[in-house]
């Protein structure tokens, strides 16, 4: 079957290409292959895969000519790498579309991705490395009647793994850039937007009355004045009960999400403060589902770390209820000054804190009604706290140093969905030194030393990484993570990993071998979340 498809695709594409070259249409795409072999390793909890080698890969092909574009994506998960859900199995053409623009109206039929505002009520997107793809299958229209006014409408079914949801999703969004639309020049820029989404599913519940069309609205405002930038979005979701036969299972309460951010920046300095309050805003494409089938996106209000030990226990947003705040400061100490040194010094400071809502999230049914307080920080259960400082300094032509100091608090029970009282809150202090040394032109060696001292959870960790890169084509890296502080002596293990790769133009080949701990894994400039594993890995990615 696979042979037939490849052959058909090849012939089809040769035909299209030769046709295209005569008619100045263009043909390009990209390809990604991830293979991993899994050997059993009881100590780190690595499972052997029955198939021995697992593979995730996809091939995108796009054709554009003038106002017309079409394309498809062939995906193969035979079987999916263990970091992907069990249900992610199979292969086939999972994405195909045709787009045509006429008189400024853009029509897309087939699959598409779309986002309304920040995604609080609707976001259809993909992140192949994390196994995220909730593409829509339907029709989308985009239109800009005059300068500064952007309208879009869409209808379709949302994808989860290899199927589409039962629920039909409809949405519309309008955004007006007041300065452009009303044509006035001003130092202050104002942009407003309003979005609407609704999901239709028939009501088969014999005992409770369920709404067939569940709607969500969101309004957003963005004001920019010189170095000041304010952005706010408020979203609300009307009754969305799961459809259980028990009263306790059906929550008819209104959900809401509020996001605000205010930043000030000028050359060499930037500061931003953000907050969000999320209450009962899990929005699925099928009301009875418990995993995946999610059509909105509540961004996590914490810093996305890429240093391994900083990202060891990442915060997971609780869409059913949380209150968070975050502050970031970016500062560049000028070169020539006392603290700046010859090249200047860069400082990044970040603080974030997420806690529970007062009394839990909103709930409404025939017997109970609860609405949590609007703002409640003191006295609420702490979910996550992170305070970190990063300093980067170029010492001389050969040496660059980055140092990080951080303190984190991680409520393992809530954030990992465990029974309250199992682990409690894990507090950790982390220190990182990242030094790169230029041996000669094009040859650089980079060493990372990370230390995590923790109280609870898995205990303390140390990590060392050495990466040798030869510009522009090669990289070699050796990494070891050592869980020396684990309370269970048997689990005080070394996770050693070796990687090397070759890059040329838009092609990247990488092979690796070793043990990986479950979590976020970064190498050669790419980060992804993986389960614990022991074996070989091969990655090929290319675009043409």
């Amino acid at each position, binding site marked *: 079957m696979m042979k037939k498809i490849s052959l058909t695709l090849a012939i089809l594409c040769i035909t299209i290409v030769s046709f295209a070259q005569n008619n100045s249409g263009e043909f390009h795409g990209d390809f990604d292959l991830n293979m991993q072999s899994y050997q059993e390793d009881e100590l780190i909890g690595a499972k052997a895969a029955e198939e021995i080698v697992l593979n995730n890969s996809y091939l995108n092909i796009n054709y554009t000519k003038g106002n017309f574009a079409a394309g498809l994506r062939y995906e193969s998960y035979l079987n999916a790498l263990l970091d992907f859900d069990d249900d992610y199995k199979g292969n086939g053409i999972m994405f195909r579309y045709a787009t045509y623009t006429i008189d400024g109206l853009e029509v897309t039929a087939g699959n598409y991705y779309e986002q309304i505002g920040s995604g609080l009520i609707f976001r259809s997107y993909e992140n192949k490395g994390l196994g995220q793809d909730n593409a829509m299958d339907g029709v989308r229209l985009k239109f800009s009647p005059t300068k500064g006014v952007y309208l879009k409408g869409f209808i379709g079914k949302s994808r989860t793994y290899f199927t589409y949801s039962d629920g039909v999703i409809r949405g519309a969004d309008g955004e007006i850039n007041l300065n452009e639309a009303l044509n006035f020049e001003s130092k202050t820029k104002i942009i407003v937007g309003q979005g609407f989404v609704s999901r239709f599913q028939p009501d*088969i519940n014999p005992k409770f009355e369920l709404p067939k069309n569940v709607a969500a609205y969101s309004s957003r405002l963005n004001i920019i004045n010189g170095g000041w930038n304010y952005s706010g979005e408020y979203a609300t979701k009307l009754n969305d009960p799961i459809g*259980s036969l028990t009263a306790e*299972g059906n929550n008819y309460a209104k959900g809401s999400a509020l996001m605000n951010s205010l930043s000030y920046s000028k050359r060499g300095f930037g500061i931003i403060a953000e907050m969000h309050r999320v209450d009962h805003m899990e929005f699925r494409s099928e009301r*009875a589902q418990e995993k995946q089938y999610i059509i909105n996106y509540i961004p996590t209000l914490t810093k996305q770390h890429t240093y391994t030990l900083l990202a060891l226990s990442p915060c997971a947003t609780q869409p059913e209820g949380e209150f968070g705040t975050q502050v970031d400061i970016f500062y560049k100490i000028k070169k020539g000054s006392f603290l700046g040194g010859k090249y200047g010094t860069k400082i990044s400071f970040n603080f974030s804190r997420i806690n529970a809502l007062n009394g839990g999230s909103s709930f409404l049914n*025939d017997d109970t009604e609860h609405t949590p307080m609007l703002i409640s920080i003191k006295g609420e259960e702490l979910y996550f706290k992170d305070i970190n400082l990063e300093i980067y300094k170029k010492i001389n032509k050969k040496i660059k140093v980055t140092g990080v100091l951080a303190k984190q608090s991680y409520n393992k029970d809530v954030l990992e969905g465990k029974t309250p009282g199992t682990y409690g809150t894990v507090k950790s202090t982390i220190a990182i030194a990242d030094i790169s040394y230029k041996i000669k032109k094009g040859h650089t060696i980079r060493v990372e030393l990370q230390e995590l001292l923790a109280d609870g959870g898995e205990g303390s960790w140390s990590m060392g990484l050495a990466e040798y890169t030869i510009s522009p084509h090669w990289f070699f890296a050796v990494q070891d993570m050592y869980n020396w502080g684990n309370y269970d002596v048997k689990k005080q293990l070394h996770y050693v990993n070796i990687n090397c790769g070759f890059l040329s133009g838009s092609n990247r080949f990488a092979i690796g071998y070793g043990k990986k701990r479950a979590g976020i894994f970064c190498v050669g400039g790419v980060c992804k979340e993986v389960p614990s594993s022991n074996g070989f890995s091969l990655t090929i990615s290319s675009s043409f």
Partner: protein
Amino acid sequence: MKNIITLFSFILIITSCDVVEGPYLIDDGGITPIDTSTNTYVKKVLIEDFTGHTCPNCPAAARELEAIHEEYGDQIIGMALHVSATFARPPTHEAPKFQYDFRTIWGANWDNFFGISDIGLPKGMVNRVGYPNDYKLGKNEWLAVVITELEKEIDFGINITTAISGGNGAITINTELLNTIDGDYNLVVCLTESNIINWQKDGTENIEDYKHNHVLRTVLTDDALSTSSTYTSGDNIPKSITINLSTLEQYNIDYSANTAEAGNGNAGGWVAENISVIAYIYDNATQEIVQVEEVHLIN
């Protein structure tokens, strides 16, 4: 101009929303359950609820199962299988709470075969439909599948009679064919016990006197229904099984005490009056359960 009109009408058409006002419980709603006391056979559905006494989200699934049973009556048959070391093995650090071992070797084997607890509990199957792709159902998905299953035609009718006294006796299963069909079917006969009062985690609480219902105790047979694969309408296939409750009870105690399971052998204390017999027939090719029946062991 034409474009603006097209787009706006498109937007207007697709916008819609329903807001339901309380009370949400439908007053005259509900199904009138089919009267199953007459002799006519009806379609019955088996809901297998994989659970564990230290699984805090599991009682919600048991309540969902009860609610479905209340709504549709005797056409719904439930079975609770306590599986997995994480959720059902008696935890030594919680002693003397949660020390009963509800696990069985058959529960563990089915859990392994269907890969249920791997993806977390509670999880269940409704007549095992959807195998091998979409059969592991969360509790909220059970209702939709039950509704479709109840509308299916039946080819088999199962009749169970028991003659037990003093923990010994015979169970007789008579399978009647309602249509002429072809296929490879298996008959499974199990015993489940209800009303077992023991510890259970429920959300953030530890309930001491939780009532465990339809807990799988033992599987008496899981064999081919007949040697041929053709069945003629009107055929009757009998099966007789002799049982000794104390031997069956001891088997579970030995299984629990097995070092591989790291249990504590505390799997006895069966009460014969609370035991039911469940017999079901499944299609060997698709794993789908096509008919099921339940009766009390002691009448």
